[in-house]
């Protein structure tokens, strides 16, 4: 139970985050890959920020923003009656921002590799923009989607700093596996910390291994 509750929470968080990121990351990646707007570099930078920003810094700002007095947090309290901070919903929002670049970049790379002329051809053959995306761009960018999903999932599963700042340590609500490991180490329960860490270690290895193996097969085709 001790092992599975935080692990299950982490998996839930990662799944929800991955799904949300696929939905909002795709249009962002598409826009970044195709636009000639002069704002592109700015948006690109903002999206990439979480890669280099210390999680505690990101977590701090999110805490301020999502807190009951923050811009988003107060609006959320009005809407739902409960606070975003120290809740699962708050964790989802934080994770989405934290993992955004890991979802956007593989998709953006895949979209950028699509020949412009192929997309234009589909338009001249009668496809609307949306039709073109689903009938040509998306099937040819599967690798990007898989990469985005794997990276967002794995990255969310392992996150610690942002969760600690925004979510705290509430069992069953915000106590994800990395927090649980930290707890166990703090209380010198090394056996439990070992069990959980081993799960994450194995998971990280398997995910990356499968991804590289699949990539290799795809590129040799």
């Amino acid at each position, binding site marked *: 139970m001790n092992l599975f509750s935080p692990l299950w929470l982490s998996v839930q968080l990662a799944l929800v985050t991955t799904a949300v990121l696929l939905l909002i990351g795709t249009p962002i990646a598409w826009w970044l890959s195709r636009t000639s707007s002069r704002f592109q570099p700015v948006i690109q930078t903002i999206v990439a920020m979480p890669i280099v920003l210390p999680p505690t810094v990101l977590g701090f700002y999110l805490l301020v923003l999502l807190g009951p007095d923050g811009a988003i947090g107060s609006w959320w309290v009005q809407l739902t009656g409960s606070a975003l901070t120290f809740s699962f919903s708050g964790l989802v929002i934080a994770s989405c921002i934290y993992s955004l670049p890991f979802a956007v970049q593989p998709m953006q790379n895949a979209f950028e590799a699509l*020949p412009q*002329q*192929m997309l*234009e*051809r*589909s*338009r*001249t*053959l*009668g*496809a*609307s923009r949306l*039709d073109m995306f689903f*009938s*040509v761009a998306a*099937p*040819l960018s599967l690798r990007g989607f898989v990469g985005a999903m794997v990276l967002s999932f794995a990255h969310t599963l392992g996150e610690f700093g942002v969760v600690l700042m925004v979510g705290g340590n509430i069992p069953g609500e915000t106590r994800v596996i990395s927090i649980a490991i930290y707890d166990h180490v703090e209380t010198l329960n090394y056996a439990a910390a070992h069990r959980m860490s081993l799960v994450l270690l194995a998971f990280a290895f398997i995910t990356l291994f499968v991804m590289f193996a699949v990539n290799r097969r795809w590129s040799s085709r």
Partner: protein
Amino acid sequence: MIVLRHKVRKGSFSLDVDVEVPDTGITGVFGESGSGKTTLLRCIAGLEQEDGLPVHKRNVGYVFQDPTLFPHLTVRGNIEYGARRAASHRVDSAPVVDMLGIGDLLDRKPDSLSGGEAQRVAIAAALLRSPDIVLMDEPLASLDRRRKDELLPYFDRLHDELAVPVIYVSHDIDEISRLCDHLILLEDGKVSACGDLFDVISRVDVPMLSGQNAGVVLWATPIGHEDGLTRFDFGDGDIWAPGEFAVDRNPMRLRVAASDVSIVRERPSQTTILNVIRATIEAVHAVDSATALVRLGIGNQDLLARVTNRSIRRLGLKPGDRVFAQIKSVTVRH
């Protein structure tokens, strides 16, 4: 008639076209690279400007220089892509597949096709969209000589069997003379000449046609074979051309470049040149300080000869003179 009226600015380049082209046959757009040929096609297709009717609602069939088929679909999936999205189905798949000779390729993936095969599939896809107009942007330019020769007969069939008007962009005057019925000359984003191919192509007052590309297209009927050559009747005499062409009553196109025509005062008695034709000088157009183009009347049709001003002075050539035209080479359409 189809009205082409397009105005667009791209950096320092601007395209400003306002012409009418017939709604039948193939209209060639000829011009040097950078003259705006592709931009004109992209304007017609709606690919150039964001405003106006969106691309997918303009019923055009666009054939790009590179085929860029959809690699995740089979050949069948590729040619049906446009058909499935077509507003009307005036074009049946079977005759198009047959005309382009792609029946055996239908279950293959695009990456297993040669460049010529892929381009034929791309053309089929564009035609099966049942377009109101087909736009072709140098569809042969990315192919090597052999593939081009392999593909040209299919274009001849397109020309003969297709009911939709085609706009065919090229910088190759031979392709244009072989395939097109009408011609638009584009120079620096502007139309410098427009009209029937046979009239426009022999014009000497347009810089683009007075240099390397000077020449004429003759109508001639194949009437016999000898020694691997075909004898053509152009109305007022015969012309020999290499190759054996079916002898029927249908006139064919012969392209004669001005640089392959020379002028002699008297019929040479011993020469390797087969085609020596009686002609009358109609006009002499100085092109530059060294060379001139001489228009020669041969019955109802004309020839152009590129000669030096020095030769014109030496032989004292002037309009009205009876001379002989020596033709070194002739290209036949089919």
